[in-house]
């Protein structure tokens, strides 16, 4: 049903209708942002890239042939933009840790948690972030990441276990 709604909205958007695209932004921005946050592990960068992805989606929507595949398509755009961004960052030799320590950023519990999340491998961080940010539904995460339901569950489980170890490690270091 959701796909068929997207399909009809996408058709209108292809005529350049900005108001119709607003519907797609409302429906999909959250998922796009969650993916970017998972890949990049940084809220500010995720905001920038998610917004860039949505804008790019609008500018390129005429190229979307399978009009019922908007979600997969926009997530692909977002993922590619994230990887471009990471490549650029790597060239600039900016370390993840430095990105995290932005001035004015909150310290304390949130900061420790954020750092631990950042230290998770990307293939676990993405499903974990999407799971917590996007309604705690492993099935929809599986659809969005194009993996099996059991595969999504496995990744979320592994992410939780590793995150626990990272937090415990941090706690022990502080003692």
């Amino acid at each position, binding site marked *: 049903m959701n796909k068929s709604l997207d399909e009809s909205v996408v058709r209108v958007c292809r005529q350049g209708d900005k108001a119709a695209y607003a519907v797609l932004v409302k429906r999909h921005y959250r998922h796009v942002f969650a993916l970017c946050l998972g890949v990049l592990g940084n809220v500010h960068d995720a905001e920038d890239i998610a917004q860039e992805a949505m*804008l790019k989606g609008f*500018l390129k929507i005429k190229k979307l042939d399978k009009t019922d595949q908007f979600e997969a398509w926009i997530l692909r755009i977002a993922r590619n933009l994230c990887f471009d961004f990471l490549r650029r960052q790597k060239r600039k030799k900016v370390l993840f840790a430095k990105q995290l320590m932005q001035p004015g950023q909150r310290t304390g519990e949130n900061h420790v*948690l954020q750092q631990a999340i950042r230290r998770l491998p990307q293939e676990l961080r993405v499903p974990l972030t999407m799971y917590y940010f996007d309604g705690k539904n492993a099935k929809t995460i599986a659809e969005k990441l194009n993996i099996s339901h059991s595969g999504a569950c496995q990744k979320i489980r592994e992410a939780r*276990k590793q995150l626990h170890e990272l*937090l415990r490690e941090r706690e022990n270091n502080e003692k």
Partner: protein
Amino acid sequence: MKSDCQKIKDQIADLVTGILPEAQVHVLEQHLNECAACRDYARALKDEDMLLTEFFAKIDTNITHQQERVLQAINHSDVSRKSETHLIWRTIMKSPITKLAAAAVIIIAVVLSINVWDKSIPSAYALEQTIEANHSVRYLHIKGFDPSHKEPKEYWVECDESGKLKSARWHMPEWDAPEDGAKVVVWKENKIHLWFKGTTKKRSCLVTFKEEKGADWLYNRAQARNPRLAVERLYEQQAEGKVKIEVDQPADKAKSVVVTVTYPPESTKSGEREVLFVDRGTKLVTAVKFYRLKDGKYEYQGTQEYYDYNQPIDPEMFDLDNEVPADVQRIDRDLQKIELNKGIGPDELEKYENMTPKEMTIAFFQACADEDWDELLKFTSDSEIKQETKDYYGGLEIISIGEPFKTDEYHGWFVPYEIRLKSGSIKKWKLAVSNRNLVQRYMLDGGF
């Protein structure tokens, strides 16, 4: 933790994350009852689950604002021109010859355009443009964010043609007043409808009243959130030199104009700073961020976001009667007020309103002595006097009424009394009287 407990860890992670199949939950719970190490592990994971939920929920509060920014960027984009320009540019840059030619064309174009530059630059933003744009605003949806809470306060306002507030609706989250719980308030036709959604201790109820002090307070709050009035006020204050206003108009047209308002030391709002974000196209305020000076730095205090300018609000939003579930208790304070002043004519009202605690007590017992039960009802919230009360107190004799006194535990007054009942027995006690009621005059609260 036993060696086979390592396998249980997977299940615990699944249980806490809510993805453990139902059939395995019971078996795992049994194991948790028996194994302290696994219980600790489960507890730690549960705590982390809460932390993760809260952490991502905090990030989530900004999503609507981000979506608005995407939509603004899209509204300012030109699909066909942008993509065509992009293609042409890519074609030029592919060849070194066309690159050089393009560079030459740009240099010539820059030289030629210097003479007409002044005419072609866009006009700068001015506060008056926002005031002008606000003149046509009739409907508005506002969200107020507090940095320490996830759920925002929400407001919907409807104005008349002159911009005066017509109706308003507020959503107050529980954190605003935990003792009251979450509330919805509707102000319409000078009447307040207040829906207490209830807490674990208090039941949900809908209270309505008219012309109370609260009406003015709510009206003022809604007016303060009206961006039209807020911006006009800023404009006047700027003209009088009472505020410092800086306008930043980024080169990127997709970005908002940022108006920073700083209050100087001599101002009543000294140390405060407001940052207004103004939409380039509509010239309307989309958000205001509030800061306060502390230890030489401006500390973030909260944000107010403005949405849905001029999108008509469903009239149902200002009608709680239909929205509040039928089983919720309804209290009409106006009716209650009429009920409390039952039997008192308009000419007599002043007399009862001016009674002191002692005078009220004397009048109260005199009504018992005279067996004037209609008169007695004027001092109680009861709808009738019970027969056993009439039998017990009817025809009493007042021996003495003492001087009223107060205690720390009770907000009202205690008035000592000594009466002789019809049976001949003497009762010596104190009447509790209070004016903390809807009609704000002294009435019986206890001790009778």
